[in-house]
């Protein structure tokens, strides 16, 4: 097997060195091919539901990223400033709370958020789908924002071990400028972006999982039909579950392969969207780390 490394400026070596972009294109291409296939073979209402579900999941993921960034930045920087302040009480309290939050599995935190959402829906306080999606995004963000906060703290701590911070302080540059602009904006954008890509993937995973889990219902008064369509609750739909169950027919009837991708398209498409997206997001994050030499 050849073991030499490809050099030169060919498009292939460019793609090899920018694997994150390669996988982004793969993701788009894969979803594009799925869209075409479904447009041809999936019935119109299911196709419309699938598109809505995908867009809602994507929207929620994007909102999670924004909320996590805001919360994580605020908590990370606050912890640093409180640690250096004279009174350590604020630092002690926030550290203690974040420590406890870290010990609550993400899915439990999201489940609690969904329980509260169910109550709000039941009481008619929340009606609009948009608000529901924002609530769901907020709940997931609360479960994952600590990863952003930790990244921020690690970056600040790393620069504090160098002369970086002290040298700028000695020149009269304000500490909040050093932290927010010099360290985080100018020197940590790549690290934060990588973390946010990972969070986007985690949010898709948590969303889909919790929607699937609560398909049995958290309440007799509120069920999946009350929630906006997402990939998870589309997959939890009885029809989709039947489609996934049909996959096990392949073990006993390999010939079924010729019809499964036409007959059981809703469930398989939803599952493919979820799994393929998770895989591609992971590969994009990995490629990004390699390209920016973050590891």
């Amino acid at each position, binding site marked *: 097997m050849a073991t030499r*490394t490809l*050099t030169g*400026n060919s498009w292939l070596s460019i793609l090899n*060195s920018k694997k994150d972009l390669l996988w982004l294109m793969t993701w788009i291409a894969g979803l594009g091919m799925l869209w075409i296939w479904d447009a041809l073979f999936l019935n119109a209402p299911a196709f419309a539901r699938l598109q809505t579900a995908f867009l809602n999941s994507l929207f929620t993921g994007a909102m999670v990223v924004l909320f996590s960034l805001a919360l994580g930045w605020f908590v990370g920087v606050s912890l640093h400033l409180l640690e*250096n302040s*004279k009174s350590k009480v604020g630092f002690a309290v926030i550290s203690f709370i974040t420590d406890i939050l870290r010990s609550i599995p993400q899915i439990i935190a999201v489940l609690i958020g969904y329980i509260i959402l169910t109550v709000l829906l039941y009481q008619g306080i929340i009606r609009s789908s948009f608000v529901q999606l924002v609530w769901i995004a907020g709940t997931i963000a609360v479960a994952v924002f600590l990863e952003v906060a930790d990244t921020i703290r690690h970056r600040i701590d790393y620069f504090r071990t*160098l*002369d*970086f911070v*002290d*040298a*700028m*302080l*000695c*020149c*009269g*540059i*304000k*500490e909040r*400028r*050093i932290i927010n*602009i*010099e360290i985080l904006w*100018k*020197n940590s954008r790549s690290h934060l972006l990588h973390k946010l890509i990972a969070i986007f993937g985690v949010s898709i995973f948590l969303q889909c999982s919790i929607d699937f889990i609560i398909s049995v219902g958290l309440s007799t008064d509120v069920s999946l039909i009350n929630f906006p369509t997402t990939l998870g609750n589309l997959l939890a739909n009885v029809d989709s579950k039947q489609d996934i169950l049909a996959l096990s027919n392949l073990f006993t009837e390999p010939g079924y392969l010729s019809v499964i991708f036409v007959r059981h398209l809703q469930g398989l498409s939803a599952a493919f969207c979820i799994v393929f997206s998770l895989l591609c997001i992971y590969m994009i994050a990995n490629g990004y780390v390699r390209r920016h030499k973050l590891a």
Partner: protein
Amino acid sequence: MNGLKYNIRIASEGRELVAIDEFRLAKSAINVLLGESGIGKSLISLAIAGLLDPDELNVKINGKSYTAYLRSREAIDIRRSGFFVFQEPSSHLNPLSTLRTQLREGSLTDAPDEERILRKLWQDSALSDVESILDVYPKPYRPSGGEKQRILAAMAFKKMAASAAHARESLFIFDEPTGNLDNNLRNEFLDLLIENFRNQEATIVLITHDYSIISRFVSTYSAVSKNILYRELLLEHGKLRLRDFLPGEYLSWMEKRNKAIHTVKKTETILRLYPHVKVFGRTLSISRDIEGRKHEPLVIRKGAVTYLKAPSGAGKTTIVKIMMGLIKPEKMSMELGSEVYTEETNRNVWAQNVWGKRMTMVFQHADESLNQNSKVKSVFSGLPIAGLMNEQKIVNSISELFEEEPSCGFLETKVKYLSGGQKQRLNLLRSLILHTDILILDEPLNGLDFARVAKVIAMIETKLKSGIGVLVISHNEEVFDTLVAQEDVYYLHHTGVESR
């Protein structure tokens, strides 16, 4: 004397890092390689020693790919019989292995003379003292930077002893081996180097910024002076070139400086630091005598340079950080003009009154002190005088302080693309333009070539005329002793460790 010649090209992601048409080394000689920091001395040496990663860098030596070079007889001999002592000892020792294990693994397993080498490097200490260090796992502060550097040097000397039979094919490279050592230890190291060289006549490359080594070599090792060659790597018209450096250049400059008369003028005291400072469970004391018999406050005067001396690891950087309010001590007292600062002084007071206003400090590592991802002009953003600094003023300041006009586009260049010397000058400039009462310089000559050293000394002398008080920490005693009056020289001692 035979020589080695290399044409070297090193690039990363399409960007050329080093390109030199002729890099010469004299065989069976000590090649002292000088040049400013970041110019490529270490990179070139690593390339020749076969220690660069072909996956990370695109390297060509004598027109051949690096993989082909690594497979060549020459490279194999260098790796088999030679050694490389790296610049930064902390990161070049395995934190999960004792120093003893690391000193005896690989090709050093059966290498002789370990005891002799260690005793020499530890100034003939009792073997038990040295043994106690060997059983530790290297951590950030234990053993000290100087001790770690000596361990790496010991590895090289052991390898030298082990590969005596292949001395002619071997290449030993020492990259800044004395950076963490005080002058006494540095001299012990040089003694051992010369002694081993006399026995084996291996090819040695000694990379250093410490020009005072020249004085040591000339005064103490004249017998081998014909085997010691001085070369300087410099950038001329955008091209890297290796030139022969004449020791006379440095020695005559030092002679002129030694002859200059320093008239001691009594000027106003700007800062007074009382002599006992408690920090990290120990007491640091200041005196004017080297033995530390009589403790006196450290005084910085207007228009004068105060020089603080101490052995490596004694706490010089710690004490100046305390003076700057960057480290909170357990006990200290300092008068800055009419204001008193103690261990109780709030950080906000330092920020509002001192930093960038009354005092400023230039740290030794420009790479760490500057934001590598900033453009040159952005280095001045956020300063207390940022509103007064436009691009033209920045250009004027660079020209004025360093007597050279910056090139077009210089201000738009990212700091990480500047040379080491340019970074160091930018590091200095950022503090100098603040026009504070006191300027603290931590190893200001680090990483500078001889021409720049002379310019920085001239710059300090010019600034003194404006009334600024300067506090210097530097192991370049030979240079700074010519700048500082004896009564402005202080010594730092640590006197006892308190249990926490």
